[in-house]
């Protein structure tokens, strides 16, 4: 592996990355669970699916927080996670509009 220059290395940016993971990761997880809640097996009405959905939020959330430190800078973490949010909620709204 060739040595990376200072700019190529991951920047620490602890606060902004943590912020991105905690806030944007949470909204992203809700978006994923929202799609599953409405359009996953059983639809909205299935018995105990509400509980199941609640259980599914935190694993997605935790994984996003865990890997947010791989972004090179805090700015990129916020940027890409915002884009991911827009994408997921876009898909959700289109699906809602179509159904």
């Amino acid at each position, binding site marked *: 592996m060739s040595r*990376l220059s200072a700019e190529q290395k991951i920047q620490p940016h602890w606060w902004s990355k943590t912020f991105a993971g905690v806030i944007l990761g949470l909204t992203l997880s809700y978006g994923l*669970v929202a799609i599953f809640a409405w359009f996953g097996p059983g639809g*909205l009405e*299935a*018995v105990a699916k*509400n509980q199941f959905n*609640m259980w599914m939020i*935190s694993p997605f959330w935790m994984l996003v*927080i*865990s890997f947010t430190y791989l972004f090179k800078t805090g700015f990129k973490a916020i940027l890409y996670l915002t884009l991911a949010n827009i994408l997921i909620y876009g898909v959700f709204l289109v699906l809602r509009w179509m159904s």
Partner: protein
Amino acid sequence: MKIRSDILRTYQLVHTWTGIVAGLVLFIGFYAGSLTMFEDELTHWATPSNHHLPQVSTDKLDDLIAKASASSDKVSQGFTINLSDELSPITWFEQGGGRRLALDDVKVHGTLSEDGNLLTQTEPTNELGNLIDLLHRTAGIAGKLGHEDLGVVVLGVASVLYFLALVSGIIFLLPTLTKSFFALRKNKGPNRFWLDSHNLVGIVSLPFHFIIAWTVIVFAFHDVLYDGLSLVYGDEPTFERVASPAVEYSMDDLPPISTYLRKVETLTDGYHVESIAFSGLLSARPSVGVTIKNTQEMMRNSTGDFIYMHPYNLNVTYSSIPMSENEYYVTYVASFFSLHFGGFGGNTGRWLYFVMGLLGAFLFYSGNLIWLEKRRKKAPIQSQSNRSMANLTVGICLGSMLAVAVTLFSSKWLYLFNTEINYSYLTCYYLIFFTAVIYSFIRGAAISAIHIQYATSIACLLIPITSVVTRFIASSDHWASRDLGSIMVDVVAFVFAGIFYFAAKKTKNRALYGERNSIWAI
């Protein structure tokens, strides 16, 4: 596997700091969680055997209920039928009751004599198992945040950090994983040995740890998560409210116990009924909760599953097992609970979870020790922050275990002095715990680690000794129970006396003959 060095460096930092911040409270949560695997046995062990009245045959239970409800108005508010031979056939609350843990509840135990007369006995409840469960859920941190225990929220936050620590730990272990997975290098000094065992335990029990981290986050924040989810649902209701018809019932309308047993038989497969708890029988929302057990299934927790019904018309209102094949989400959710509470695999499963919990505690303790060693300076006196962290680690981790051991051994003596037992447990725990923490700051980590471990060993040894001695002391409370669960409590305490003695000797050895430039040297 090759991973870029800056990624390794980043995740090493994440691992170190999440571990250091969350480790101490998680240590208490884990070892106390191990004990909760046997909380019913512990409560039973701590309750004088004559508090429980003899069981009656199932066909006499209806007669017992009728006579009990004629004797007291409290019975219609709620009573429990126990089918286990070791418990009183009927109990109800004279004072307290309800779902929240209360330390001054008073229970009436009832049974029938040979000639069919009602016999009752009123006793304060023993909450030892529930208090250990409270310690497990809050790490002993008192106080409330809204309607939630502060300690639960603290452990929830700690579990988020713990999840991060798990992921980051794997990432920065990956490059050397295949090379040093099963390596336990004893000849490279104690530090390497601690690190190797930390890695080995962490990797081997990884699935368990992910499950625990995830479920604890859910348990701590489910209210908040549900609130957010209701936004997702829009106008759709998240929980159905069942309208209760305004019918007035009387105790005479109550079907016989055999009806409930038959109903459970038709609803389930392979389950047997442990207990049946009635509540609010004269109110608009009467309810009966049946606790059922089947060690072949993934049960909600190690004490069983439950079905809630309307006591008069037997309509099922809620259950922790699916009532039909298309209720598969009930099965999934039940399995999440089961994976946290060790509700599968019967006694083998419980012992496995007991051991895994202790290994988890070891993970946090060893993690702290490794951190301390890494920051070690080549000087006889280590930095103030290092010494403080060492004192905290020893004081909190070992002190908490000492406090529980002393509380357990004093339990039967406290009954002799007629104290309010549940409050005495609390006083005893916190007194010993804070004494240990203060002691480790006064004497330093090295000496107090040795002393606290010796003290814990002695306290553990005194548990079975107490059980033997109190059997022969004449008092109003009897300790004659010879059931396997109670005997095992004493046996396990004896084993742990040995373990703590061995650990104390090892620590002393290191303090005297180990490296001199160490916080563990004296």
